[in-house]
């Protein structure tokens, strides 16, 4: 069985994990175009090589980030999402902005 290292729980069978898509940085919702927003929400780059992806350890519902080589399917590194997402994102109230 393929083994993945969960940052919270340690090495586990790959069957305990689900894939959650590419990690991408959110564009500024106030200035972004609809096309860019749609791309951020729905389009995958499908890079051949090392990519950053969301993975979830299902028994603990723990989401983290894995760097994986999509050509060789090797898992390079796994780490808590807090390494990248380390600042609170404040969403301005759109309706108030327009006043």
């Amino acid at each position, binding site marked *: *069985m393929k083994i993945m290292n969960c940052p*919270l*729980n*340690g090495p*586990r*069978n790959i*069957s*305990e994990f689900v894939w959650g898509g590419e990690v991408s940085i959110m564009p500024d919702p106030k200035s972004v175009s609809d096309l860019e927003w749609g791309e951020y929400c729905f389009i995958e780059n499908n890079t051949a090589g090392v990519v950053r992806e969301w993975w979830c*350890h*299902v*028994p*603990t519902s*723990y989401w983290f980030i894995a760097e994986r080589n999509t050509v060789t399917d090797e898992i390079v590194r796994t780490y808590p999402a807090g390494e990248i997402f380390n600042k609170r994102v404040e969403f301005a109230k759109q309706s108030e902005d327009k006043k």
Partner: protein
Amino acid sequence: MNALPKTVPNGLQRRSFLYRQLQQAGAEFAEVNGGAVAIRYGNNEAVELDRAKAMGIADLSVLPRTGFKGTGTVEWLQTQGLTIGQESNVAYRQSGGEWAARLAPTEIFLVDSLAGSGQLIDRLNQSWAWGSEKPRKAIGYPTPRQDSHAWFMVTGQHAPDMFAKICGIDFRLHKFAVGQIAQTSIAKMSGIIIRTDLGTTPAYHLLADIASADYLWPAVQDAMKEFNGGPVGLNALRRLEG
């Protein structure tokens, strides 16, 4: 521990969702904190104790358990007198025999002692309250576990070998210490295993989705068959604990 009087599960306010299966296996019930707990299975007491030492499983689902989660949880529980260490995936024993299982940096699953009085859990539930100050002080929030997780205890020398058949984690005694937690897949179900030995007998709490308890109870016993394992009552566990 004094022998508990026999009773029937239907006569009490709370009973295990497995009580029909327990009855079929020959369980005798007794009242613990208002609920009907299987205390023995009609065996000779010494025989049941030997089974618990070798390969047994007990249904503790009627006993009290709860949880707390969120930023500030551990700090708040510490102000309430609980002893909780830094490490996650470790369970910390409390003075009354309860175990505070730190599932994540800000999440605690609290299981009662085998006495099952619920004293600590009741006190915490009564003390917990968000204050009126703003911004609100982060003390976490309760995550009730009584109706979310079934609670079994797997006991005996063969427990690590049995778990090896249904789970990918190494539970051998020199690899998986007392107090250690595994949150993993058990017999294809997500679950939590916590090692808390009873005296010299290896013992593991097994907590998993309550709605699938009817599946998990016989599934684990099926894996126990080759070790001549079977159900044991609360009396045997209490005697092992001493």
